[in-house]
């Protein structure tokens, strides 16, 4: 079956409600001019300018390695710039460390929250700035203030609830409240929507608009371009450490943004695939595990890419883990190439030819303390050793082959994976599973947190695997990806498959969403 490449811009990007804040005062809230920063071997920022008005949401977009994080770290005091000035409200400020940044009114909310899980929400908010009288904490005062802060963003959270009992979205609100308690006037959010459900994202946007209307300047970093159009007033594009352009969102299209981010016209966001689809290879019947997976049945044919989608919490990852042996099913059966399989653990699954590329590459995909080469070899050691001894030369040669094939950027094979960029880490994970020559490959959010250019390379790889006759199951929350890459789409909701769309090319986002909400 020939899968045509997908054209961009098929979905008009909705622009959200504009700011009600009066910006007539004129002086920008924040001006960063000529920021320059180099690290050994790389010039991360090349005279970058950034302007942020009070009462505005500025989206910051760019590929991985474009310099976004470095720019934000300079603003937050984590890095000292080699050159450049920062002015807040027209006054020049020197930000040499995080305390300076805090005093200047800058707050950054990262993907990994800085919260202590066992402490309550209000204790976290006032951590380091407890409201005390003669050394004793004034609990009621803190409670009152925390509640007021939550009210300011329009969210109800019990200030005394321990943070670990809060959802990810609620923890994010605690971080925002913490920023507000420090009188932050510039709030930077780094990929805030990555771990949120659709509903939670909507609520987050409401909060951001609330902050914006109160005169706070928000810098919003995201890979999801639809969000940019929905929440931002202006969008700033960076590439290779340079500031490419800053435009009001009404003046650009998604295509324009991608072109500016990548530096070239991307003809197709998704490559063409010519794979012959054959017989069913992976057949799953009635898999169940507790509440999370309830009687799931499906099949994946040779050369086919089946997308498994749904809302966060629908049970997709749990299903994949059952197929891979990471969890034990309560019931159901798995068949590979007509033979029933008894898989008790991942080791069994790998031996039978099934592999899983996990959602969370850092915690589950890699042993960060080991080198790239050692991580590459880990699942493949049975093939790479003889009588228990590792065949070093074969290992090194194999790894070098994949470094070339996947264009992994590492200075040398012994580089610790901890020190690699996210995209390169993902490539190491890919390399190790490709080398295992599995017949069934399960991808769980393969392009999460990866820039547009590297995404294309991963799609090419998925196509190649399909063309080799392998059966591919791709779990994804990115609907464009699901529509662009799959032959068939399975939608899950609360542990069950609510629907199957047999022709990926003809599916629409609305169809999927309908099935996804049950």
């Amino acid at each position: 079956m020939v899968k045509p490449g997908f054209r961009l811009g098929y979905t008009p990007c909705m622009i959200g409600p504009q700011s009600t804040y009066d910006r007539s005062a004129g002086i920008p809230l924040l001006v960063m001019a000529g920021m320059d920063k180099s690290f050994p071997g790389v010039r991360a920022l090349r005279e970058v300018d950034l302007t942020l008005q009070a009462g505005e949401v500025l989206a910051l977009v760019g590929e991985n390695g474009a310099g976004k994080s470095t720019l934000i770290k300079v603003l937050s005091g984590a890095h000292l710039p080699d050159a450049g000035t920062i002015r807040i409200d027209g006054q020049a400020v020197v930000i040499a460390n995080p305390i300076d940044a805090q005093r200047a009114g800058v707050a950054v909310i990262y993907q990994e929250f800085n919260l202590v899980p066992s402490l309550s929400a209000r204790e976290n908010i006032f951590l380091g700035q407890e409201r005390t009288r003669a050394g004793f904490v004034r609990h009621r005062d803190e409670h009152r203030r925390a509640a007021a802060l939550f009210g300011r963003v329009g969210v109800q959270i019990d200030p005394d609830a321990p943070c670990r009992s809060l959802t990810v979205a609620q923890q994010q609100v605690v971080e925002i409240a913490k920023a507000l308690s420090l009188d932050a006037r510039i709030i930077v959010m780094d990929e805030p929507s990555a771990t949120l459900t659709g509903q939670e994202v909507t609520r987050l946007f409401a909060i951001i608009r609330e902050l914006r209307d109160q005169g706070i300047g928000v810098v919003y970093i995201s890979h999801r371009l639809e969000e940019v159009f929905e929440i931002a007033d202006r969008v700033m594009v960076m590439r290779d450490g340079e500031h490419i352009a800053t435009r009001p969102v009404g003046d650009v299209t998604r295509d324009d943004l991608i072109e500016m981010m990548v530096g070239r016209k991307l003809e197709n966001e998704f490559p063409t695939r010519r794979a012959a689809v054959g017989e069913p290879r992976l057949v799953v019947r009635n898999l169940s595990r507790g509440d999370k997976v309830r009687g799931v049945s499906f099949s994946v044919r040779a050369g086919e890419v089946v997308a498994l989608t749904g809302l966060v919490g629908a049970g997709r990852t749990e299903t994949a883990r059952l197929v891979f042996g990471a969890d034990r099913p309560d019931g159901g059966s798995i068949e590979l190439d007509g033979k029933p399989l008894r898989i008790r653990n991942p080791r069994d699954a790998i031996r039978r030819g099934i592999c899983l590329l996990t959602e969370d590459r850092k915690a589950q995909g890699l042993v960060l303390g080991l080198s790239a080469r050692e991580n590459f070899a880990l699942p493949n050691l049975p093939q790479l050793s003889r009588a228990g001894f590792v065949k070093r030369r074969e290992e090194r040669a194999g790894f070098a082959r994949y470094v070339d094939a996947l264009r992994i950027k590492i200075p040398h094979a012994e580089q610790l994976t901890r020190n690699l960029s996210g995209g390169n880490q993902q490539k190491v994970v890919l390399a190790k599973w490709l080398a295992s020559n599995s017949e069934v490959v399960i991808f769980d959010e393969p392009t999460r947190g990866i820039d547009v250019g590297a995404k294309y390379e991963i799609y090419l790889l998925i196509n190649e695997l399909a063309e080799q006759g392998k059966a591919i199951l791709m779990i994804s929350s990115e609907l464009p990806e699901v529509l662009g890459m799959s032959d068939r789409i399975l939608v899950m909701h609360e542990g069950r498959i609510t629907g199957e769309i047999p022709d990926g090319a003809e599916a629409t986002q609305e169809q999927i969403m309908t099935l996804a909400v049950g």
Partner: protein
Amino acid sequence: MLSRFASDYGMLLVLLLLCALCSWVTWAEQHPTGAAAGEGLAADVVERFGSSARVIVVARASQEDAAFADALRAGLASSGVTVLATVKGDPADARRALQQGAQKGDRLDVIACNQATAEWAVFDDLEGEFPQLGQPVVVMPRSYWWPNFLKPDNLLNVANQIVVIAILAIGMTMVIITAGIDLSVGSLIALSACVLALLIRDVAGAENAGTTGMVLACLGGMAVCGLVGAFSGVMVAVFAIPPFIATLAMMLVASGLAFILAEGQSIYQLPAQFIWLGRGTDLLGIPNAVLLMAVLYIVAHVVMTQTALGRYIYAVGGNPEAARLSGVPVRRVLVFVYTICGVLAGLGGVVTASQLKSGLPTYGLMYELYVIAAVVVGGTSLSGGEGKILGTLIGAFIIAVIQNGMNLTGVESYTQKVVLGMVILGAVLLDMLKKRGGGLFRRGRSAG
């Protein structure tokens, strides 16, 4: 990659510095004894006095002095020197020899002594007491300056002292790399020693036990400890009990068992040949136990660096979940490392019993702390995922060298403990400094 080597084995530098320090503080005048000294002195005498000299050799009655005297006399005789008498005894014997010589009216040119006998009072007033002899000169082997620390005997002693701890440290390194800990190793030494002593005394024939009997008894002791280790491993791997707790419990159980088996007493009915491992020196004067230690370290190093199992151990310590999802048999690996740790502790018990020719339930008391210290000083991180076997060997030697240096300079044992504690802290601090590239303080998470 020199920098990688330096960071992996940086403690080697510390060890060398400590050896240099010990050498410096034990710099002393050495007076040679023994056969080699005798030969040297003979050559000296011939050179100074010619082959027509007439000599009396004076030495004490000990074995070493006898060797000295014999070599000296042989050396002199082979050069044509006349040896009038060879004294191997005490000053009274020397006086008699001189008196005899004086009565016969012989001329005496040289009285060849070693450093000890040269001091005897009988030689103080030769002119006055034995004028007939002429004017004999008292000579002794030339002294030289050399650190007591670096004498071969002492270095072998250093190695020998640390053997048991070093052997245990191999297993402990593997366990710590998996982010675990094993507090039971000290008690396992006692358990193993008591089990094997009991087996030899009651089953293999006590003092008349043959080699097979002894070997089987030792294997029995090691097997029992292996079982205890396996049990700890299962607790950790299957029931997810924290290693600290699981092995703490086994430490008490094993110690109790050792006391029960030995009925609180020493089991000493062991054959004389049993000390072969603990006290024997077969190859070039190197203690057999030290050779065993060397072989074990080489094997362990190869396993950890060249085999799939070694990789699995590092992976399990670095990120057990990611390892499991990459097909590593995590539970099996964990049970294995704790079992090996037990077996090696059992072997440590065998060596101890062999050294002391008895089995006592009080062996190995507090050893686990020194073993852990050796592992940590050698560069292995308690949080798991990294560490080198040879680094542990260096760590063990650092501890041994410090203790030896303190012994040689007469530091009393309570002070030794204080010093040892401070040095362990200092060594680890130094290692962390190096790893953090010069940053001394714990870096808080920056805003990055």
